[in-house]
Structures are given as structure tokens and as C-alpha cells.
């Protein structure tokens, strides 16, 4: 395959407007070779996935088996994900195979010349190619943000449950999520302790309170009280102060993110809740709430005072089991001795919280709907530009047909155009996505990017572009090759 003449002129368009984003973009995109090698890697992967054999795929691609294997390993390493489950002989289908079997054209037809022709067709009108790529970039960045928020939201929803060391949770009957502060009788704690296999039961209290700032303003907060000596839900990621400092009367821990919201500057500042002093003696990092309320950590008894909770009530009981105790057995023995309570594993409580916040409230649906809409808009933009390009090159497609190319070969050229656009668009969108991740990392709701999400985004880009190619494919399928004689 010959050299692709600098396809990423998009950065010229982006350059002036979003200078520091495009600077990062141009650094890694300007090396056309890299984009091309990424495209080659992906094609190699698809070939292996489709053939389910390195030997066969290597033969089809015209490379040595060891070179192919090396390529795939490199790709897997960069993505941090195992793409192909392989034994010495066979390649299991898995995700890769599923993708390849959905591929609309035989991978073997993506010859270097087809890729070259596709690339040249795209670059023939650079402005239009820029429009295509920008369409993909906008759409994929939007999808990235929506899905990144979803992932981040999903994690935040269960962050408290994930950080509480408990084998089983005793929660008030009908609890929908972690932030649903109904109360349990603490008597349940002693009943639980009487069950064989239970080693420890830590009470924690979750409740709303009104935080009165030093300047007199107020803000609602979620107070989390636990027994600091015994354990429970203790603040983590401390950046200032210490857990021991919380043992001093009237001490609380808050997160750095919320200092402004709480009208305090840091350690030593004090506010009030229910007319009781609350001095900040520890500051955490990254313990954020997706609700509007900051978390305030404090010892159990102080929490009762701050929230006006009777001394016999708690919100949750964290059950620790003795080593080798059977979770299910303990659970079935626990349930009958409790009143107005149910026993959940951490996983069950997490999934209950998740489904409440993400789907019970419609927040998750809104994020998905946004992502879907972005995909539709992106597909339309890409379909438009691809179709315009196909129409412009129609005589060339007719010539190909006249000199005997199969319909599939024509489709492959168009799909290759779509794939190349997808790779270019995704590369830029990914970099912008990383930038968004960075600038939002300290915000109340950061956008998260995981390797799995990256792969999903890449596949979505491919799917979007291939779907966009359909109208063009239809156009060349209906074309009459005899038109080559009319001009």
C-alpha cells in the first residue's frame, strides 16, 4: 500500500478554534503512518477473527503467521484487552468472531489496492472528508460523554457499598438504594450476633442534615456515621487530617470537592448541624455524590446528634462472617430473627441501588437516549457525505463494474471508505474523549473511560459508519454499468 497523503487535514479546521485540543490531536494524528498501521492492525484482527485461524488469516493477508500474531498481541497490549481467546491451533470466536461475522464484506477483499482506492476517493475532496470526520468526531465524542457519564454514574451510585467491608448487609425492609435512609432497630444487631458464623456486626447511620456554614448559609448534607473503632463505613482517600482526629469530639470529614459548597476552606473550619458544632478534621479526595448532597463522615453517636436520630436506631448493619462460614446458610438463619429488615449481599445491594438510580429515575435512560441520538445524527452526516462521494465517483464504480468487478468488490470499496473514515474519526474522538476525561476528573460528575468502553465506542463507530455506507451501496448496486459508454 502506497503512502496515504496526509489525511488528517481536519486539524487545520479544528486548529484555530480549539487550539489546545487540536494541538494534542495533531501531535498524534499528524503521523499518518500511525493511523495507517492502526487500520492495518484492526484489519488483521478482523481477518483472524473471521478465519478463526492465524494460519489461514496470515495466508489471506499475505503476511507471515508470526508477524500476524505479533500484530494482534501488540493491539491487545495497547487496548489492554484480550481480543481473541486462542489455543495453539484454533481461535475461539468470542467477541472478535462475532464482529467479523457481522462484517458486511469478506475481509479478504480488503486488498491494499481497495484500501488505497478508498483512501484516495475519500481524500479526493478534502473538505468533504473533513466534514465526514467531524461528523463522526462530534457524534462519537457525544456518545463518549454520555456513556462515560453513565459508567461514572454507575460507579458513583455504588461507591459507598463498594467501600463498606461487609459480607452481608442488613437493611430496612424495602430499601431501594443506599441513600434511602429509613431506620432499623439496633436490637437486630444483637440478634444477628447470636447467629453462628457471624463474627462482627457494625452499625452505620445514614441520614440527612442541614449544614449551617460559618457565614450563616445552609446546605443539605448526607451524614454517614459509623463506629470508628469497630469499623463500618469509614472515610477513605484521606488527603488531610486523619481518622484518629475524628475521635476528637465535634469532628467530621468531608470531601475536597465540596469545600466550597459547604462554605469552608479546609481543616479547622467549623460549621453547625442541629446547633451542634462540626469541625473539619479530615479531608478526603474523590468521594463524590451524584446526588446534590455532600457526604459528611462522623462517628456514630455524633451522627445521631447531628441528625436527631434516636439512640436505638441505625440505618444499616454490616455483617462480617467468620472465616469459612457459609454465606447462604448464615443468611437463611439471619432472616427469621430480624424484624422489618432484609439481608442482602453487597452485590445485591449494589445492583438494587444501580437499578433504582439508573433506571428507576430515568437518568440512565436519558443518558442512553442521548447516546443513541448522537449515533443517529452521526450516521446521517456520514451517510450524506459518503453518498455524495459515491455519486461523484459513480463513473469510476461503473468502470470497475464494466471491467468485471463483482458487486461485492464494489461494496468493499465503499465499506473500506466507511471504515477508514471511522478509524480517522474515532482516533480524533478518542483523543478529545481523553481530554474530556481529564478536565472533568475533578468535577462533581467525571466522565470515565475504561478499556471496555473504548472498545464499545470503537465498535459503535464502525457500526455507525458501515450503516451509513448502506445508501451508497444501494446506489452502486442499482447503477447500470452501460453508463460507461454514455460519456
Amino acid at each position, binding site marked *: 500500500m502506497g503512502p496515504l497523503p496526509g489525511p488528517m487535514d481536519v486539524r487545520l479546521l479544528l486548529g484555530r478554534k480549539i487550539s489546545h485540543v487540536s494541538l494534542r490531536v495533531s501531535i498524534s494524528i499528524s503521523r499518518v503512518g500511525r493511523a495507517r498501521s492502526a487500520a492495518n492492525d484492526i484489519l488483521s484482527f478482523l481477518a483472524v477473527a473471521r478465519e478463526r485461524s492465524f494460519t489461514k488469516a496470515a495466508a489471506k493477508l499475505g503476511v507471515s503467521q508470526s508477524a500476524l500474531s505479533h500484530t494482534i498481541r501488540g493491539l491487545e497490549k495497547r487496548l489492554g484487552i484480550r481480543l481473541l481467546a486462542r489455543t495453539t491451533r484454533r481461535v475461539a470466536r468470542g467477541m472478535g468472531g462475532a464482529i467479523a461475522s457481522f462484517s458486511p464484506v469478506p475481509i479478504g477483499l480488503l486488498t491494499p489496492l481497495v484500501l488505497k*482506492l478508498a483512501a484516495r476517493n475519500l481524500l479526493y475532496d478534502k473538505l468533504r472528508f473533513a466534514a465526514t470526520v467531524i461528523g463522526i468526531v462530534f457524534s462519537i465524542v457525544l456518545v463518549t460523554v454520555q456513556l462515560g457519564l453513565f459508567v461514572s454514574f454507575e460507579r458513583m451510585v455504588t461507591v459507598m457499598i463498594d467501600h463498606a467491608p461487609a459480607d452481608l448487609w442488613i437493611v430496612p425492609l424495602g430499601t431501594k438504594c443506599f441513600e434511602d435512609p429509613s431506620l432499623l432497630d439496633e436490637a437486630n444487631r444483637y440478634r444477628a450476633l447470636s447467629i453462628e458464623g457471624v463474627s462482627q456486626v457494625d452499625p452505620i447511620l445514614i441520614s440527612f442534615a442541614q449544614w449551617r456554614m460559618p457565614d450563616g448559609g445552609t446546605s443539605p448534607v448526607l451524614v454517614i456515621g459509623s463506629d470508628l473503632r469497630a469499623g463500618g463505613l469509614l472515610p477513605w482517600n484521606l488527603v488531610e487530617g486523619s481518622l484518629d482526629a475524628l475521635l476528637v469530639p465535634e469532628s467530621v470529614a468531608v470531601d475536597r470537592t465540596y469545600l466550597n459548597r459547604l462554605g469552608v476552606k479546609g481543616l479547622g473550619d467549623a460549621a453547625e448541624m442541629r446547633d451542634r458544632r462540626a469541625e473539619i478534621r479530615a479531608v478526603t479526595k474523590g468521594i463524590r455524590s451524584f446526588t446534590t448532597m455532600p457526604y459528611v463522615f462522623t462517628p456514630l453517636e455524633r451522627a445521631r446528634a447531628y441528625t436527631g436520630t434516636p439512640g436505638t436506631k441505625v440505618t444499616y448493619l454490616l455483617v462480617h462472617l467468620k472465616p469459612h462460614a457459609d454465606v447462604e446458610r448464615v443468611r437463611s438463619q439471619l432472616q427469621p430473627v430480624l424484624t422489618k429488615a432484609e439481608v442482602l449481599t453487597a452485590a445485591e445491594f449494589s445492583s438494587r441501588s444501580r437499578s433504582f438510580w439508573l433506571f428507576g429515575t430515568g437518568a440512565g435512560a436519558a443518558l442512553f437516549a442521548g447516546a443513541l441520538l448522537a449515533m443517529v445524527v452521526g450516521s446521517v452526516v456520514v451517510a450524506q457525505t459518503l453518498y455524495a462521494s459515491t455519486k461523484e465517483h459513480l463513473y469510476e464504480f461503473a468502470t470497475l463494474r464494466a471491467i468485471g468487478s463483482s458487486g461485492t468488490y464494489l461494496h468493499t470499496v465503499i465499506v473500506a471508505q466507511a471504515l477508514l473514515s471511522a478509524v480517522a474519526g474515532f482516533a480524533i474522538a478518542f483523543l478529545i474523549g481523553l481530554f474530556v476525561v481529564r478536565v472533568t476528573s475533578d468535577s462533581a460528575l467525571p466522565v470515565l473511560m475504561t478499556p471496555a468502553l473504548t472498545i464499545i465506542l470503537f465498535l459503535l463507530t464502525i457500526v455507525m459508519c458501515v450503516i451509513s455506507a448502506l445508501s451508497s451501496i444501494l446506489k452502486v448496486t442499482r447503477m447500470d454499468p*452501460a453508463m460507461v459508454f454514455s460519456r
Partner: protein
Amino acid sequence: MEARGVVKFLGQGAGKVQALRGVDLTLHNGELALLMGPSGSGKTTLLSVLGCILSPSEGVVRVCGNPTTNLGPEQLAKLRREHIGFVFQSFHLFPTLIALDNVRLALDVRGEHSSKAVKRSKDALARVGLAHKINSYPRELSGGEQQRVAIARALVGDAAAILADEPTAALDSENGSSIMAMLSEVAKDPAHGVLVVTHDPRILPFASRIIRIEDGNIVGEEAGIGAARTSVAKARSVAKT
């Protein structure tokens, strides 16, 4: 390649016309046949039918013994890529590809994309005298050179039949006659037959046979003088007079 009793209707409904009214024609290897007729005579339609781009409405077309009757578009495409090379009036090269890649495409569509295909493409370009221009884009080539690239593309797959549609119409007389000289060279190879559709009388001297078509019927056939002419220089001087 032969056509027997070929009838072709074009269009539908009220616009339906009978472009070919029972044509018999055989293209032999080693000959350069000219198909001449005024515009609207059906010569391009006949070329399309012989070239397996269109199927005949009635009658039979055989390409290397294969009848094209009732073949679908994919099977027709297969016949085209295996047996037929095309040369067009306006060249139809790919402007974004160099000469070598333009020629390679004809092999790529046949599934040949090894280094051997590159070599064959280079050989084909050398055969049309463009060994030194394999890396040129069409826009960097003269019209005559572009048409020679197109001939190389038609030749590279060893097609039995080369079908040319007004190959000189977009060229000046000098380039036109050198293209015709080249096609008559090709026709001397007993492995190929060349059929040229034209209404350009300047290329009559190159033909070994002249077929005249009017209103969808073959109205006459005569032996040409091209069979006797071998020298390109001589051909050029004839074209200039």
C-alpha cells in the same frame, strides 16, 4: 465471440425501442474488426451486449463458448473479467491512482493482488510504451498516453476479446492513429480479437474487416486493408493524408 440473431429492446413502456433487430456477428481471434454506423444505429448497444454488460433480449451471445443467455449480473461480470477487455472513448481511468494502479485494478477485481500482479501490470504498460510513466497520475499524461494506459488495463488480464468504444474520438489524429496502430498490433496476436466501434473514417485503414450497422441491422461487411498493413509508420502516414 459470436452473436446469433441478437435482438435487444431498450427502455420500457412507451419509450421502448428495438435497438438491435437480429444481429449475427462473429469476432475472430487475430482480427481487428471495425463496427461502423451513424449515431443511433445500435452499435454501442451491440458492443454492450457483446461485452456482456447487457444481456440480449432474444438470440444468443457466446463468449469463448459460454452463452450469456439468462445470466445474472454477477455471472456476466465474471465473464467480463475473465474474457473481455474494454477501452472507452473517455478512457475512464481512476484519476486518484497512478498508471500502474489503474492497470492493477483489472487484476485486483479478479482476486490477483500478489507481487506477480504488479509485475504483469508493469509488463502491460511496457507493452504500450509507457514503462517510464508507471508512476504518473492520469492528469500528468496526455490523452494519447491515458488511452494507452486504458489499453494496458484491457490487455493485462489476457482477455480474448478487446472491445473499444470510439477509442480515438477524444484524441487528435496523430494520437488517434498511434492508438489504432497499437490496437492493430494487439489484434495480430492470435490470442486476441479486437472490435472497435467508431464513426471515425480515419481509422478505416487499420481494420482487417469492416462491419456496417444501421437501425439495428448489420447492413454490410467488407474486408479491410488493415490486415495487409503492418508498419506503424506506414499507418501514420495514411492517417495523416
